């Protein structure tokens, strides 16, 4: 895949956006992958979920402001906020990255199939895609989550919900890219020489569709992380044992005037994660528009 390698070595890595994106994502990534390491730096290495409103000595320890003992203060249940903010990265990243990857796979499969075969395959994919797009995203999320899970929202159900509602755009991008390249002469040549459809798709079509899809997918992770937080705000809570930025912010916004740090700190981390992925998507998009293999 030398074309991809040269793509990577080119404008992508050198660009400022890419570097900033990587920096932000590294920060968030470390929090997601190894939260215990970071939390260990703080006094007491507190667990993010074992908390109580009353301290050992009987005084109340909920909603404390940031201090030397609790770097980010404590939340409503007396939990150490620093620990919670750091641990919160995992849930957002799992949902965001997981859903985006699934959307990319599903969308690309359907889009390439539609663009390549044309005819009724194309018609069906487009019609169903239009149908899905015809339902506003937030309304669709609310409806699906209320049906799929008559109880708690989990990472899995969130990922499935996002996938069901968001594959059409990736499909459209892939379809357009496929249709553009399908009529190229070298494709005709490959078919004439007896290469199988699968091989042609994998060797030529998919790499061609990959850059726009990758750019969109990277930005999509950012959007999904944001939407996942909105779901908490709308009342679709995840299990209390899962530490989630969205849930923390939803709980904290009513206390904003008195404990602003409880809303702002997770908000900052969430925004950093979202920004990182958006910038990554931008960086990819500015690379070469297609991997034209004629040359």
């Amino acid at each position, binding site marked *: 895949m030398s074309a991809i390698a040269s793509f990577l070595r080119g404008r992508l890595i050198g660009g400022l956006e890419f570097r900033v994106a990587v920096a932000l994502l590294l920060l968030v990534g470390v929090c997601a992958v190894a939260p215990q390491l970071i939390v260990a730096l703080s006094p007491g290495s507190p667990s993010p979920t074992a908390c109580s409103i009353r301290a050992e000595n009987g005084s109340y320890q909920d909603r404390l402001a940031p201090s030397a003992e609790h770097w980010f203060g404590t939340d409503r249940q007396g939990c150490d906020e620093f620990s919670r903010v750091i641990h919160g990265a995992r849930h957002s990243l799992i949902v965001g990255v997981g859903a985006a990857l699934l959307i990319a796979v599903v969308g690309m499969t359907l889009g390439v199939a539609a663009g390549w075969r044309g005819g009724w395959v194309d018609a069906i994919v487009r019609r169903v895609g239009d*149908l899905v797009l015809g339902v506003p995203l*937030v309304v669709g999320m609310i409806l699906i989550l*209320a*049906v799929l899970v008559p109880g708690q929202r989990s990472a899995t159900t969130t990922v499935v919900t996002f996938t069901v509602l968001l594959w059409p755009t990736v499909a459209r991008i892939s379809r357009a890219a496929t249709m553009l390249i399908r009529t190229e002469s070298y494709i005709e040549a490959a078919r004439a020489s007896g290469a199988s459809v699968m091989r042609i798709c994998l060797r030529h079509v998919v790499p061609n569709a990959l850059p726009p899809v990758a750019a969109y997918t990277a930005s999509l992770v*950012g959007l999904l992380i944001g939407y996942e937080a909105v779901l908490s*705000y709308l009342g679709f809570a995840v299990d209390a044992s899962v530490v989630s930025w969205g849930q923390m912010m939803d709980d904290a*916004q009513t206390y904003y*005037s008195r404990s602003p740090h409880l809303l702002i700190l997770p908000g900052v981390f*969430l925004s950093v994660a979202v920004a990182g992925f*958006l910038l990554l998507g931008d960086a990819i998009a500015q690379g070469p528009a297609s991997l034209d293999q004629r040359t």
Partner: protein
Amino acid sequence: MTLFVLRRGAGAIATLLASTMLVFFITFALPGDPARAIAGHRQVTESTLSAIRARYGLDEPLWEQYIGWLGRLLRGDLGESFVARRPVTDMMQEALPVTLTLVAFTVVIEVVLGLIIGASAALRRGKRSDNAVLAACTIGLSVPLFVVGSLAQDSFGIDLRWLPVAGIRNGFFSYVLPALTLALPGLAIAVRLVRAESITQLCAPHTRTARGKGISESAVLRRHVVRNSSVPFVSFVGLEIGALVGGAIVVERVFNLPGVGRAIAQAISQRDNVTIVGFTMAIITVYLAVDLVADLAMIALDPRIERMS
């Protein structure tokens, strides 16, 4: 052109029908007994629960309920809400203008400010103000709406008392904070879009020719960019309206605007199926209509598109 409109129109109606059928069945398959939800945690007798179900036809099989609903729909009757005991059309008449006003206001902000800021940034590309604008755009897209809304509500509404905090009692002013909040992500996208289009235009050969003739860059922008970037911009607006509907749900909740979004969120938690379906239909209809208009506008601006579809 007429053929295109007819074809698209028929497609839109088909999509509308299919979407609403989907929504209908999902909604009525929602777990949770609406009769019990209405009754609440009281000593309501079983006979009252049956009476409630009978009154709303909830004990009929799902297909029959759908046919009945469709029939009433064709007569212009969207049914009666379980919870509020009012015709859904009445509730819609109150809620729709609020949401449409909010969305319209937001779109205006996005378009106007998007053009102004985006074009200015393009003219100053590479300089600090341009980078600042880009960074601001990224931030605008990253911070969740309800956080921005809460902060804005707190600073401008309470601390500074410049603007009303909630409700629609203050007419025009009630929509200022909500619209600004809602516009933020879309504005960020619009600015980037306009900026990118402007830069493409500014780097294009015909611009160099114009410069050679002594015409300024901003004059070039005014003459060419607006026209040439209008197609992607209209496409953006078309897509944006769909996204705005979703954002409106959040913003309406933060600022307590009695619009469609808030009505739907409430109806879902109350299992008010009739209202959910009625309002969702309204949203989908509006969305499809806007989509169609956007497509028509794009063709009007650039006839090549019709041939491509």
